[in-house]
């Protein structure tokens, strides 16, 4: 029935030649805004933490519908550090969703972290920064920043830290997280490869009690390869992902940035 | 009649029995001690020049500019109490900017002078305030070409009603001087500050009135302005000074209708000529003495 009703049958009354009937304002209610303040700029991000490092990655394509707006729009941002170049920063924020909100969020968090250093004379810890980011998002819950954020760094024990967020500030620390357009493609892959879900002791006998493989901390080389595999595969299956892969590796020594091309189709 | 001890000089808004406002006259005294400032209205633009007395050797050279840009096409130079001048400039900028937002066009120099004159005069009326301790020289160029009313859709009709009338030109270079009383006149050449007397007598020698035939060009004006500031400085030769000069031409001229600093090369050339002409005078005097 729904399919039928979208087609308007010829009637006796004068009709419009186009499908969309004008909305009636005769009801007396106030005119509603037709302006929608959000858009989706596509792309995907991903973070994995190890025992002494955290890797955050994202593709560099930015889209609007079927248009590629640009092939290089980074979704990864250094937070804190000195000056506009963020020298010495040890926290990375990745944002995917509505790019303008992502930019605004990045600028706010960066300002907060820099102010923290000016006022307290020490760098903000990742877990403090993570909590603060949650507050920033939650404070705008009635007009949210339309982004999925992932925050990465090294915690006070020197262990890789990774936090993931929803648009209104709900957050948790995780081992790995994929976000954005291809999250549904990448996340199951990470579950299987990082947390070893659905992998069992190969030598154990078949049956209900077959023991699961226990996840072990991964080394940097393995994680980098996982990230590359995740993105090259996502590029094949998702039109909003591609062009370039940007990776930031956070260790106790700072942030190392890597870039490699992805398919442009 | 002296003002001291009579009580009539203690407040604005009180006249002395012979009809004077002593507070305003004291403000004029403040101006008379300031560095000389002049303005010359030439054929194709206006020059503003200032003898900036160096109050300390610790100040950076050529920094701390004193001639202010008020709007694209208007500059202000003042002599007297510096902070009062700053406030005058700030108010002028507000007036110019609010004119733009109301009329979508640059403020005519005459209107700016009128408004600032009214503003300065208001500070002579109330006992709660004191008059401005400055005399300001306002120079500007009202565009002769039909200015593109910014933001206009299209260029409008070429002729006829709402169009342009041929051969009629408005605008040109304008120069005004506003005194602490709020009094202002339009001038061909204006001078204020310590060396105003000698500056004025030099200005009077220049051809500035268009009714007397061709008056001096902007570039000549720049050179004369530099010379006059050097002449005016003769009386306080013991003090160091820097010459600050700005100019405004028509859209077709060297500054493209904007108020700008005179380019370094031209200013240095003008200063060189100014020094030379002074040396020439000295030599003449020495020559006479020998005779």
């Amino acid at each position: 029935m729904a399919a039928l009703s979208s087609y308007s049958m010829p009637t006796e009354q004068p009709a419009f030649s186009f499908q969309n009937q004008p909305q009636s304002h005769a009801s007396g209610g106030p005119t509603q805004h037709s302006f929608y303040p959000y858009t989706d700029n596509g792309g995907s991000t991903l973070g994995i933490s190890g025992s002494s490092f955290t890797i955050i990655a994202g593709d560099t394509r930015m889209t609007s519908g079927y248009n590629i707006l640009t092939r290089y729009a980074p979704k990864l941002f250094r937070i804190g550090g000195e000056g506009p170049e963020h020298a010495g920063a040890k926290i990375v924020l990745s944002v995917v969703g509505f790019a303008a909100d992502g930019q605004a969020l990045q600028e706010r968090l960066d300002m907060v972290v820099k102010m923290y250093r000016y006022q307290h004379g020490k760098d903000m810890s990742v877990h403090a920064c993570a909590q603060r980011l949650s507050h920033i998002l939650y404070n705008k819950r009635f007009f949210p920043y339309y982004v999925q954020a992932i925050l990465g760094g090294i915690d006070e024990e020197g262990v890789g830290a990774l936090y993931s967020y929803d648009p209104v500030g709900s957050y948790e620390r995780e081992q790995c997280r994929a976000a954005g357009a291809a999250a549904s493609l990448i996340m199951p892959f990470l579950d299987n490869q990082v947390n070893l879900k659905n992998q069992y002791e190969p030598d154990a006998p078949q049956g209900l009690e077959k023991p699961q493989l226990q996840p072990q901390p991964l080394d940097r080389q393995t994680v980098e390869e996982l990230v590359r595999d995740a993105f090259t595969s996502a590029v094949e299956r998702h039109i909003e992902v591609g062009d370039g892969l940007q990776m930031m590796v956070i260790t106790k020594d700072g942030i190392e940035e890597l870039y490699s091309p992805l398919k442009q189709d | 009649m002296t003002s001291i001890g009579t009580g009539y000089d203690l407040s604005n808004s009180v006249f002395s029995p012979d009809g004077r406002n002593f507070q305003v006259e004291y403000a004029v005294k403040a101006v008379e001690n300031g560095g000389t400032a002049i303005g010359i209205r030439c054929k194709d633009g206006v020059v503003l020049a200032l003898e900036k007395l160096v109050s300390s050797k610790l100040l950076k050279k050529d920094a701390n500019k004193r001639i202010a840009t008020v709007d694209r096409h208007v500059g202000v130079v003042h002599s007297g109490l510096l902070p009062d001048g700053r406030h005058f400039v700030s108010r002028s900028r507000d007036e110019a900017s609010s004119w733009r937002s109301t009329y979508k066009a640059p403020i005519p120099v005459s209107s700016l002078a009128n408004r600032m004159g009214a503003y300065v005069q208001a500070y002579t009326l109330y006992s709660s305030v004191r008059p401005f301790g400055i005399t300001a020289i306002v120079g500007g160029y009202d565009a002769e070409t039909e200015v593109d009313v910014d933001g206009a859709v299209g260029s409008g009709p070429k002729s006829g009603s709402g169009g342009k009338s041929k051969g009629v030109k408005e605008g040109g270079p304008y120069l005004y001087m506003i005194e602490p009383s709020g009094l202002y006149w339009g001038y061909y050449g204006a001078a204020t500050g310590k060396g105003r007397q000698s500056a004025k007598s030099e200005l009077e020698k220049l051809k500035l009135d268009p009714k007397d035939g061709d008056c001096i060009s902007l570039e000549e004006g720049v050179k004369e302005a530099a010379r006059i500031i050097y002449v005016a400085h003769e009386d306080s030769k013991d003090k160091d000074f820097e010459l600050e000069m700005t100019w405004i031409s028509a859209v077709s001229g060297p500054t493209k209708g904007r108020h700008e600093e005179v380019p370094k090369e031209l200013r240095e050339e003008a200063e060189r000529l100014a020094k030379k002409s002074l040396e020439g005078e000295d030599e003449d005097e020495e020559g006479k003495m020998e005779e």
Partner: protein
Amino acid sequence: MNHNPQAWGRPRDDVYGAYNSQYLPQHHGGPSAHPTTHTQSPIVTGTSVIAIKYSTGVVIAADNLASYGSLARFTDVKRLKPFNRKAVVGFGGDVSDMQYLDRLLSSLDVQENYSHNNDDPEDTKALMSAKNLHTYLAKVMYKRRSDFNPLWNSLLICGLDEKNKPFLATADLLGTTYSAPTLATGFGAHLAQPLLRKAVPDEEASQKLDKETAVEVVRECMKVLFYRDARSMNEYSIAVVDEKGVELKEKEKLENQSWAFADQIRGYGTQTV
């Protein structure tokens, strides 16, 4: 006459009916139920703006048409606005919002010139670059969208950055910003961008491109846009920004048009095959 002086000289309610205050503003007794309303759609609009970076500068172009729906309403509207000798802004979208932004930029320029003069070589560094201007405009656009009162435009901001390197970026009504060696707004994103990207696929290619080729590519794109965009016209403005300053031409005509392709088109109109 009655004993209520406030009613004297006013139309009598029993004769003329009560005064209809419907259209008065709220503080004069107008209806109070209405919320504040803002622009909900653009009215008079400009179509695409296109731009390309080359080795030492940027070329930008937009046609001179302002449309009122499908009516070609104003045919001499200049949509490229030079800000200073380092930056030009190209406006697509609502023309009244463009005029507002133009006035905003004029007052910004006046304020910029309060503090410094252009002749001092040290001051050139302080001259607002295209990058600075883009940041400013992006914040204006984002603020307005966040207030639900958007400026209905797509802007291309081009020129030189603070290191005098070519700069090109965009900002739109949502406050979205991005940068690329070639950019096109509106219909240009579909029609011109592929042609521009063919000439300049990446940043490296744009650093090798010379000015003449860049201008030629842009002119070719303006032609294609005129062929296929119904809200376009054959007179346009084109600007080149490089270290020498802004070179703006506002009355360019499309040349060497070729409509030979027209009779190859099948699928519309009355042709039988």
